[in-house]
């Protein structure tokens, strides 16, 4: 089926009308999901939508899971059965889910400053609502935002993006359709420090192409970073406004404190 669809046409447009390096629309929502989380975020990259809630740092349910010198990070991920094109139920023990969870955990463990919270636990619940390619990328970005929203100290924001190659031209932020056909790699960067948090590849990619994609993904990471920062700042500004409102006119000079 997909062979009939042109991944990149002669005019340089992709199947959904984007250019080679164009990202899909990013929508960020910080409204609380589920039951009173400490922080939550929903991000959509086009039609892929992931919602994350963060609880903690808090006392661990099971003492045996805690560490004496740092916080334990517990990530649980569930995929809604109606999220993909074809209905499929994935249980908790599903290999794909376990793998995604493990990848997320190893991405965020070095970034979160866990040593500030010894013997505590940080619970991160990821709910995949819609999938249209770039699942890991959306999970990572949503988790970053939820952690920020929860006020958990991190070394940097982790911004992930998927890249792929069609013959010799690199594409960014692949949809499901492109992901099925192209060799692709997901790269998570920390733009401020310029470090790489994750490189994940499930397909074979020619080594000559890797460098180009790697560089492009790093650049796209900074774009996503600025988008995230804008959303966080907007949210914080709203909070500050709300606080000012609560104070009333009693403290007009408080504005400068923030």
């Amino acid at each position: 089926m997909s062979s009939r669809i042109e991944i990149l046409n002669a005019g340089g447009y992709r199947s959904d009308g984007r250019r080679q390096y164009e990202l899909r629309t990013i929508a960020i929502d910080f409204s609380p999901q589920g039951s009173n989380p400490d922080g939550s975020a929903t991000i959509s990259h086009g039609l892929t939508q992931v919602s994350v809630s963060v609880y903690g740092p808090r006392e661990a349910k099971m003492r045996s899971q805690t560490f004496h010198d740092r916080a334990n990070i517990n990530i649980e991920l569930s995929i809604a059965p109606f999220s993909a094109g074809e209905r499929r139920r994935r249980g908790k023990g599903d290999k794909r889910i376990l793998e995604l969870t493990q990848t997320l955990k190893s991405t965020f463990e070095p970034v979160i400053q866990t040593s500030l919270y010894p013997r505590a636990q940080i619970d991160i619940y990821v709910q995949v609502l819609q999938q249209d390619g770039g699942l890991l990328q959306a999970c990572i970005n949503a988790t970053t935002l939820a952690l920020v929203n929860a006020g958990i100290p991190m070394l940097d924001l982790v911004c992930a993006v998927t890249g792929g190659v069609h013959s010799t031209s690199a594409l960014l932020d692949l949809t499901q359709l492109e992901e099925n056909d192209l060799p692709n790699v997901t790269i998570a960067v920390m733009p401020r420090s310029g470090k790489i948090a994750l490189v994940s590849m499930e397909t074979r990619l020619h080594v000559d192409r890797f460098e180009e994609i790697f560089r492009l993904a790093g650049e796209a990471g900074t774009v996503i970073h600025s988008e995230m920062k804008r959303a966080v700042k907007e949210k914080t500004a709203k909070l500050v406004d709300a606080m000012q409102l609560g104070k009333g006119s009693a403290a007009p000079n408080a504005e400068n404190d923030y």
Partner: protein
Amino acid sequence: MALTSTSVSKAEKSYIQAGILANPPSRSDGRSLHDFRAIALETGVAPLANGSARLNIGRNPHDGTGGTEVLAAVKLEVENVEEGTGGVDGGRIICNVSCDVKDSSPSAYPNLSSGALDDLQHDYTDVINQTLSHPSLHPSNLGILPRKKSWLLSLDIVILADAGNVYDALFMAARAALWDTKVPRTRSIEYKAKKSVTTAKNASGGAGDMDVDEDTSSGFDTRKIAGAIDFELPDYWDEGEVLEGRDRWPVCVSMNMVLPTHFLDASPQEEASTSIRVLLMFSFLSPNQTTLQGMRMSGPGEIKLSGLKELIEEGEKYAKEIYSALTSKLKDEDIRRNQKARDRFVNRI
């Protein structure tokens, strides 16, 4: 049936019960006995599903937190109607309820092990499935080709947060998602061979000199099945037609009993301090024709037989209110979304 696992102390329990029995009754959030918390509903939340809805009961209006939150989505799949494939002529409906993994937050399902969570999901699934896949509610437009292909409608409901009264929320969300469901239009295709000379001769002439295999049963013999053998999806401007009889989908009322009275829309604490709960599922075919589609009792208490009739009558009254409010909201949503679609169409030109 597992009750939710909020634990209340004896004193708390008796305080809540005394409040409900007091005259005038008083509840912790100031509602009267038969008041619902605010309900928020949105349809069409999952673009990859054929119908979907998100419902919240009791969200805090100031910060948007809390409340029971449920996400329901309907997905249609084509199924072969054959022995052993599970497909049924005229389509079938399968419902499934899953609880989200947010199991360790204070108001959802604290202290529940994954085994207990599975049990709970199973309980919810059982009630929803038995009620909604009942033949009396089955929509007539789930068939594609008679005795060949049909739609399998799977309704998946995810409980994102539990702040009491999950059953009512589940049924309302299910009704909304099913209401929102659009069945893609199909057109059957027929391959017709030219009428052979043999058959013409047969019709006019005497009995079968050529048609020897008429009565033999061959696995490849498809002549018994008349008409269409496959179908296609015609290109059309909308997503399809709505489910037939979408007005019939039932609503549920949970009556929480503190004898001799009852109350609606219980919070988790209130749920934990009532000994018995009666679920009543009503379907409204027309304004004056109500059917009781299902009934469940849970909890260790008991009610007198004579009281039950009265209870059902009361329940019908509440259900009717829920039904009419929900239906008008769903119609509003239809207008909102169709308007949006039209506007988008206009903007494009």
